């Protein structure tokens, strides 16, 4: 069992596919070819959609947006390891994972364009809406998974969050309650080294974030977050354990935020080009690509087709999102309560009246 063996206190970090494309074949997860292809497609789609979102923001076509570049392995790898009934409580930067879980890309764009309709995922999509207050999804997701257990449903909740979020009060509550009630939860900490301008080392004096699990009575494991095989394998194991009733796991995926914190940020104010360059060499997509190459799956043509397909999907999604009419004014009012109370009705009327004039 990876999770028992890779003790963060012993400085162990799980890696299966290294920076140079070497595979630890003992640990190599068995993934069917069609899934390997799917995974790669999602990685490429995520990156292209991400670049598009960034570009759209610069053109004033969407609002503030948090780029995911660098997170492709951790997002796609973890989401792929989940089962049909499982739920994702994502962090705002999680577009890739959300896509794998079935959130339509046009809705994601719509949301970042500032339209609440982008947050009404289709029925059957097991994804919680993005929670902006950092870390607040951790305790909420814990409660959600607790309910699965109480209802005796076989469903795991995967909650993702950043290194900064480990300082949040909801991290403490989420993990403490999960430990006590042995909830079927996977806590996925995406340690991308930065919380806006605050480096990981100033977020906590803990040597690893994985070891924080020790204070809550369950296992933590550190994994190379740019190695999609490792992320996939460890998430799968954590999901299986949760499903078997063995309780929660904390996974710390060590990765890097290649872009600015959001489109409103300028990371050059607080970190060096050198650091970014170093991480460029660990690119998760390039690494997986070389793995697919060694499996005779990847070739130039495959790449071209994959990119083309992704670009088309992205263009289509942008078109769809931009074609969406502005929300109906009543929509801002009518979902506050199940039934609209008198005072909100009055306020809506007052607004309508003012717009008439």
């Amino acid at each position, binding site marked *: 069992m990876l999770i028992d063996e890779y003790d963060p206190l012993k400085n162990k970090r799980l890696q299966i596919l290294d920076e140079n494309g070497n595979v630890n074949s003992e640990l190599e997860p068995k993934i069917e070819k069609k899934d390997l292809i799917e995974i790669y497609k999602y990685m490429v789609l995520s990156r292209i959609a991400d670049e598009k979102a960034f570009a759209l923001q610069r053109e004033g076509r969407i609002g503030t947006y948090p780029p995911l570049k660098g997170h492709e392995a951790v997002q796609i790898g973890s989401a792929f390891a989940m089962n049909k009934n499982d739920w994702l409580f994502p962090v705002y930067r999680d577009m890739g994972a959300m896509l794998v879980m079935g959130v339509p890309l046009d809705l994601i764009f719509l949301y970042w364009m500032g339209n609440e309709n982008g*947050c009404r995922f289709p029925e059957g999509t097991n994804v919680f809406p993005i929670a902006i207050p950092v870390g*607040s999804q951790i305790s909420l997701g814990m409660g*959600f*998974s*607790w309910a699965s257990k109480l209802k005796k449903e076989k469903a795991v909740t995967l909650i993702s969050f950043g290194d900064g979020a480990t300082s949040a009060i909801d991290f403490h509550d989420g993990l403490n309650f999960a430990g006590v009630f042995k909830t079927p939860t996977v806590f996925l900490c995406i340690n991308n080294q930065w919380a806006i301008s605050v480096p990981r080392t100033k977020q906590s004096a803990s040597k690893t974030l994985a070891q924080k699990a020790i204070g809550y009575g369950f296992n933590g494991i550190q994994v190379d977050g740019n190695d999609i095989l490792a992320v996939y394998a460890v998430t799968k194991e954590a999901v299986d354990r949760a499903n078997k009733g063995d309780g929660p796991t904390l996974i710390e995926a060590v990765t890097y935020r290649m872009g600015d914190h959001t489109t409103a940020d300028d990371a050059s104010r607080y970190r060096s080009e050198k650091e970014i360059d170093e991480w460029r060499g660990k690119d998760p997509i390039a690494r997986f690509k070389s793995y697919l190459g060694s499996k005779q799956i990847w070739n130039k043509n495959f790449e071209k087709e994959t990119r083309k397909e992704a670009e088309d999907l992205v263009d289509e999604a942008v078109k769809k999102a931009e074609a969406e009419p502005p929300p109906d004014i009543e929509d801002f009012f009518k979902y*506050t*309560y*199940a039934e609209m109370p008198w005072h909100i009705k009055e306020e809506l009327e007052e607004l309508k009246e003012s717009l008439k004039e």
Partner: protein
Amino acid sequence: MAVHNIIESVNLALKEEMKRDDRVIVLGEDVGVNGGVFRATIGLLEEFGDNRVIDTPLSENGIVAGALGMAVNGLRPVAEIQFMGFVYYILNHIICHAARLRNRTRGRITAPLVIRVPYGAGIRAPEHHSESTEALFTQIPGIKVVVPSTPKDTKGLLTSAIRDPDTVIFLEPKRIYRAIKEDIPEEEYTIPLGKARMVKEGKDITVICWGAMVRVVETVSEEAEKENIDIEIIDLRTLSPLDKDTIITSVEKTGRALVVHEAPKTCGLGAEIVALINEKALLSLNAPVLRVTGQDIAVPLAKGEDYYIPSVDRILQGLKKIINF
């Protein structure tokens, strides 16, 4: 029918709803083995087991986040916060998520959740055990705030709260938990949220109050009668959303109004009620609408508590100011 006090009525409502609907879950500090520090949940663990009556770690933020996650996942949690003074820990999840999930997801995800909190002063408890900070909640769009003042209302309102599709903060006037006994129906019943109770009709002045203040105002009414002042008493029952119609109709009739609450005066719910009356019934007013409330200070410890809680004398003084305006 059987005679019960308020705390017993809480217990009865919980028990009935748990029997009726197995999605109803009770959780909080000491609610299980101990039956709650006020015994509101006594007997529930024995009857429903520890999958439905859950003692939690000591974190109000965790309790409410956990309950909210449960509600999103199809359960109907009823969380207990031991005292109103510990309720500030839950504001983040209430404001940021419980009150907004329905709107955020345009109706897809909802938060049918009840949070029970004993509130108010008058039992000589330590600091932070005597607060009435309901206005923190009444200003949050998307949640409801309910306060019973009698055993019968308690059972009916709590039942409605548990069945309500929105998040309900259910504030229990702990000072009168055991002070009033009343015949209440054995069978289940609901009392609609959003509707005030006309406690007593009267013609000279409308007094608007809730919770433990209702009894005090009833005493005031008796005193006032001796001086030929005929009070109409409205027990709000639901603090948010307000029952505008009952308030305005009454004030239009009496032409005078007084709000009585335990919370500090400034930015308390009383202010909203005065503003509402001013907006909807200014021309009916023969005098300013006044407020007799807790003062804008920390609730004093035992030796000073009685200065803080609106007393019969202070309320009478307020009444007379209005009448003699």
